[in-house]
Each structure stands twice: as structure tokens, then as C-alpha cells.
């Protein structure tokens, strides 16, 4: 596939994929390296990394092994990132497609709703959703998804507005094909590339939002997510700063990986812009 070769040639994509792969492997192999419950009591709390050979990365304020939480947390944070992005993409593409394809009253109405979501500060809306529906991992993920769809809707709408009057779409219309066919088979496949690239931004924001929620003690305590570990580390930040620093770096690297892959995708999917004269 031409796009795949272009994707692998851009350095950003390669580094990004390597980082993401590492995080994925961490998540998948978590049960193998740390079979026990990562939230179980492993030893004395707040031991420095390397101080006790059993805990290479030390223990957190609740006496849990930070390395175990890092591995199991990888799966949780990636899961939150992917699921929230999927939700945001689904809602965003649906609304953007309908608004962009039909225009007129449908467009105005849907854009009013999108504007409403974008006028309310997204983190504030997230706080309300979590306060109302509780902070289990499911509600937090869905809430992040619900808060992040407007930019996807705007992007999809812009793509549909330009593609809908293209000749190949008009030709299908003249061939008597239904609107559904036009949207799903003709316009959407051509509108997706920029949306996929933007999905990497949505995923980065999703992981950041979850860690911000955990920082305010509003995330799900029964799940070993990196955000929770940072939240726990907040109280001991001045003395055992490593408790927050280690997951902070993990989140930073994962988002770096996701953004680099996004940039690589961008280079692969529209080479003209990327090569940059």
C-alpha cells in the first residue's frame, strides 16, 4: 500500500510507533510480569526506587508496587484513550457528516449543538458529568468521549462541505444512488484521512483529561490508571516526587508516541503538505 510505505519512511511515524508498541507490550504483558493484583499491598509505602530490590520503581503512598501499576496502567490508559476517541469520533463523524452533507437547516441546528458543547469549557462539562454519573472507569471514559467530539464534528463537516459538490459524487447522484450510499461509500472514505490524523490529537487530550480528573480525586480508584497514580503522588509531591514523576513521564511518552504517529499519518496521507518545500 503506497500510504503504508510513506508512513514508514517518515521518522516521526517510526519513533511514534516504537513508543506506542512499547506501551502496548507493557499493557499486554502486565499479567505475565506482575500476576498479582497491582492494587494489592506489596510492601511498606513510599519506598524510593532502587531502595528495595523487590521494587525497582519503589512503592506509592498505599504501599503498592509502582512498576506493577505502570504495566497494568498502560492497558487502562490506552483503553481509556482508544475508547474515548472512538466515542468522540463516532459522534463527531455522524454529526459532521449530516451537517456537512445536507447543509441548510440540518447544518444550522447541528452546528448550534456543536457550538453549545464548545462554548462550555470542556473540563467543566466533564466535572459535571462525573459528579452526576459517578466516577467508575466506564462513566469517566464515556464522559471524556462526550466532551471531545465537537472538534471532530467541525473537521468532518468541513471535509463533507468540499467533497459533496465534487464531480464523482454528482455523478453517483445522477446514477440514482441513495444519499446513504453517497455519504457512506463515496464521501466518507475520502473525508476520513484528516479525521484519522486528528484522532491522535483527541486521544492525547483524552489521556490528559483522565489524569487531570484523577489529580482532582475524581477518577475510578479501583483501576490502576496512570492518572490515579499521579493523583496519589500529589500529596507526597515535595518529598517522594517520584510517585507522580514516573507516571507523568509515562503519560508524556505515550502522548508523544500518539502525536508522532498522528504526524506520520499526516505525512503519509497528504504528502504535498508534509514534504514542505
Amino acid at each position: 500500500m503506497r500510504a503504508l510505505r510513506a508512513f514508514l519512511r517518515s521518522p516521526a511515524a517510526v519513533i511514534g510507533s516504537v513508543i506506542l508498541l512499547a506501551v502496548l507490550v507493557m499493557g499486554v504483558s502486565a499479567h505475565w510480569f506482575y500476576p498479582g493484583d497491582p492494587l494489592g499491598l506489596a510492601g511498606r509505602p513510599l519506598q524510593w526506587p532502587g531502595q528495595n530490590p523487590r521494587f525497582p520503581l519503589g512503592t506509592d503512598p498505599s504501599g503498592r508496587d509502582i512498576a506493577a501499576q505502570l504495566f497494568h496502567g498502560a492497558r487502562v490508559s490506552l483503553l481509556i484513550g482508544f475508547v474515548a476517541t472512538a466515542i468522540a469520533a463516532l459522534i463527531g463523524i455522524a454529526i459532521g457528516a449530516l451537517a456537512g452533507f445536507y447543509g441548510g437547516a440540518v447544518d444550522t441546528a447541528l452546528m448550534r449543538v456543536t457550538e453549545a458543547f464548545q462554548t462550555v469549557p470542556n473540563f467543566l462539562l466533564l466535572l459535571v458529568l462525573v459528579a452526576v454519573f459517578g466516577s467508575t472507569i466506564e462513566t469517566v471514559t464515556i464522559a471524556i468521549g462526550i466532551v471531545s467530539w465537537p472538534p471532530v464534528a467541525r473537521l468532518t463537516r468541513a471535509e463533507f462541505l468540499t467533497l459533496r459538490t465534487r464531480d464523482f459524487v454528482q455523478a453517483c447522484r445522477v446514477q440514482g444512488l441513495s444519499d446513504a450510499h453517497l455519504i457512506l461509500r463515496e464521501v466518507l472514505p475520502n473525508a476520513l484521512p484528516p479525521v484519522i490524523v486528528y484522532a491522535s490529537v483527541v486521544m492525547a487530550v483524552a489521556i490528559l483529561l483522565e489524569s487531570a480528573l484523577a489529580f482532582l480525586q475524581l477518577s475510578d480508584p479501583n483501576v490502576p490508571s496512570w492518572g490515579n497514580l499521579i493523583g496519589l503522588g500529589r500529596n507526597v509531591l515535595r518529598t517522594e516526587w517520584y510517585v507522580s514523576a514516573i507516571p507523568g513521564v509515562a503519560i508524556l511518552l505515550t502522548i508523544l508516541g500518539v502525536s508522532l504517529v498522528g504526524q506520520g499519518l499526516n505525512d503519509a496521507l497528504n504528502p504535498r503538505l508534509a514534504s514542505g518545500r
Partner: protein
Amino acid sequence: MTRLLVENLTVRLPRGADREYAIEDVSLSLEAGEILCVVGESGSGKSVTASALMGLLAPGLVVTGGRMALSGLDLRGLGPAGWRAIRGRRIAMVFQEPMTALNPLMTVGAQIGEMWRVHLGLDAREARRRAIAALTEVRLPDPEGALRAYPHELSGGQRQRVMIAMALALEPEVLICDEPTTALDVTTQAQVLALIKDLQRRHGTAVMFITHDFGVVAEIADRVAVMRLGRVVEQGTAREVLTAPQHDYTRALLRAVPGLRAPPPRPLAAEAVLELRGLTKTYASRGLFRRRRPVRALDGVSLALRRGATLAIVGESGSGKSTLARCVVRLLAADGGEVLIGGAPLPARRREAARLVQMVFQDPYASLNPRRRVGAQVAQGPIAAGTPPAQALAEARELFTLVGLDPAAVDRFPHEFSGGQRQRIGIARALAMRPQVLVADEPVSALDVSVQAQVLALLRELQHRLGLSILFITHDLRVAAQLCDEVAVMRGGVVEEAGPIGAVFAAPRSEYTRSLIAAIPGRALFGA
């Protein structure tokens, strides 16, 4: 006095291109007061030559051999400062696309004034005075107003005049024009060509004029160089090359140029398959244009297309011919009047209308979905109308043969085909629905002359074999003459004149039709 000397100039293409060199061993010379036309089809390397002479080669392209000299100054050795000193001052260039060639956010006056302020360090007042003089010389209406105007407030033709005024501001020795009139209407093109010839004569500038249209060559060239796949295949005076071409490629090109003489009229059926009665379409000024009065694109148009015949709709841009085509296939809803197919009004539901009328589009690169196989795109119409998929695909293969393509190509993607082949696929897609009327909206104007000729031949053959009735939209009267039985000339949404094409072109009744015919470049050579 040789202004420009080019010897064995060679420019290499980046890895992965379709051939190794953009241009190879190109040798040209340009004397003062002379217009050299460099003519060739797309991909012949004529634009690369021009860019090389201006030192503006696209990144990835590198001059690897040969010499270029401007009045003795070796251009290949010039550094950035050297190039800056001569660009605009001793050698200037005018580009093809007037719409995007000017900075949208700066006034015309500022953009022209820059020439004097940067090169001669004149102050704003002096630069303004010279700008007005330059704009008057290019015969721009209201030069004062133009200075304050922004590019989007001028027409295509006016913008091209501004570009020419800017290029000639500092009386350069050489002016390079890269297809400056291709994007313009035929009447505007005629005026701009006359302007360039007049300015060239008065200033004695050496002009290298790049075009793909032999009509333009016939109109203004003193000497001609014909290029093919990066090489100069023939060079000589205009008269020699046009009347006694040596190279068979040149001969083939000249043959492909459509003349104005229509073939003898053939008997036409009386019955009208397509009838337009009082068709009206007004564009309400929606959105940001609220205060402008509504534009009447079609104003009570009544026409008839006889079964098995071809009716040409000719006119300049803004005449309403495209709107007409889109109303016939119901891509646009008409405000008034009726469209009748075989006597009955066109059905409202898209699926029924599809069996009666189909359309072929202008831009080959936009009319096919890049992400789907071409066979599927041809067969999807019949499948939606109920033909079982297997049978629809088989029919698609037959249609590919009919339009002169390899049936096995149904499984390939659009990017694997040339412009001409894509138009053939577009025709196959339209024929798959077995429509009673085929609407073709400028189907060949985006193609090279040689490919244009082949597609027109295909259409003629299909019409004879299938008894097709074609509504043919074009701005090029010569193309209409080659294919169509009858013609309707449109202007401002109204039919100026209609009738059998031979009669109308031989003795046009309306003044507007006469001016259209007169504006066809190189009519003397080809028109007779």
C-alpha cells in the same frame, strides 16, 4: 541581438518520477523584438524550461547540464543575490492562473509599486505615479480605482493585465509568458494576446510564449519550438512550422487541431427526445451576498434536442450553459419552465430519472472516486437499478471494450489511468444506464489536443452505433463544429442564436456570435 541563449539544457527529475530527465539537451535562442512560441502537450517540459530560466525550479529538480545566458550573462552560475538582481529587472514572467497569482490581502497598487520601490528605491508617491502609467498602458479601465482595489475585486482578464503591467514595469529585456491566456474566455484571450504583441513591439522586449494551443501560436508567434517529452523536436519560423511541419509529431498535432468547418449536415429525425420549455433559474444571493440583487442564470430558455442528433450549447463563462446542463440532470432544481424527455416531464425521483438521462463531467481527475475500483463505479448505477451484480460487472467489461479500454482494467483504481482514459471510463459509466439523452459538460476541454481528438472521435462513433442523443456543452466553437449537428449560442442566460451548426458558423445572424467566431485564435490558418 540575442537576448536569451539556451544550449543543451538538461534538468533531472527526482527519483521515482516517470522519466529520468524533465528536459534534455534543449537548445533555444531568443532575439530582441521577437516572440518565440514554445508549444507542446502537458508533460513536454515547456514549463520546466521557463522555470529554469527564471531560477525558480521546483525543489527536487536540478539543472545538470548545458548553458543559459541572458545577453551574455551566464545564468547557471548565479547565486541567490545574483538571481534577485535580474528577476523582474532584466527577465520577468507572467503565470497561467490569474485568480491565484496575486496576493489576496494586498492592494494591486502595493503589489505593483513594490517593483520600483525594491529595485529602484523610489518613494511611494513616485511608485504610484509610475503604476498608474503602467496600468493605463495595459488598457485597464479606471487605473486610479485599480490601485486601491484588491485582487478579488478584478476579473480574470483584468488581473492578467495587472500581471503584465507588473512584469514590464522595469522594461525587462526578456518576458516569459507561461500559458497566460489558457484560463481566460476566448474574447478576453484575444484582447490579451493583442496587448502582448503591441507592448512587445513598442518596448522591443524578447518574449518567450509557452502554450499548448496551435491557434495561439498561429496568432502571435514569430518563431516556434515544438517540444515532446522534454526534447525540442522541431524549430523554425511560424510560417515554416505551421505550413510545412518537418517532424511527424508536429504534423500529428496540427492535424488534431479542430477547424471551424463542420462536416456536411446529415438527415435528422423530426421527433425531439429532449425539450426545454421556458427554463428559468435565479441564484438567490444567499449567505454573505445578501444585499446583491439575485442573478438570473437561465432566463426562459426553450430548446429541443432531436433523437440521435447532437446539440451544442456554446457560450463564454457565466453564459449559463453549465447551469442548463445541471438542471437537465436534476442536479439543480429549476425555478421555472419544464424539462421533457420523450414528451413526458423528467420524473422527480432520482432513480427513475437515472434511466432517462446521464452526464459526463469536465475534470477527469475529479469525476472518479479515487478510493474505489473503476469497474465498481461503472456497475453501481445498474446494480442500484436492480441488475444483478455479476451481470452488471459483465456489462461493464463490455462497455470498457466499447469505449476502447482493456476490459481487464475494471479492477484497477483511477490513479492508474491517464486523463483521456478516465474520460472514457466516465462515458462508459454514463452508457451503463442506457440513457435516452447523454449530457456532456465540457468533456474534452481539460485534455491535450491529441487526446481531445480521440475522445471526440469516440463520441462520434458511439453516436452512430448506439443512436445516442447528446447535449454537448463547450466554450470552444471549433470542438462543437467537429461533433455537433445543431448549435445554440448562449449569453447571460438567454439563447442568442440557434440552428444547424454549418449555417450558423458560416453566416451568423447575431453580432455576439460573430464576435465569438472572430476571437478564435489562428482562425486564418485553421478557420477557413
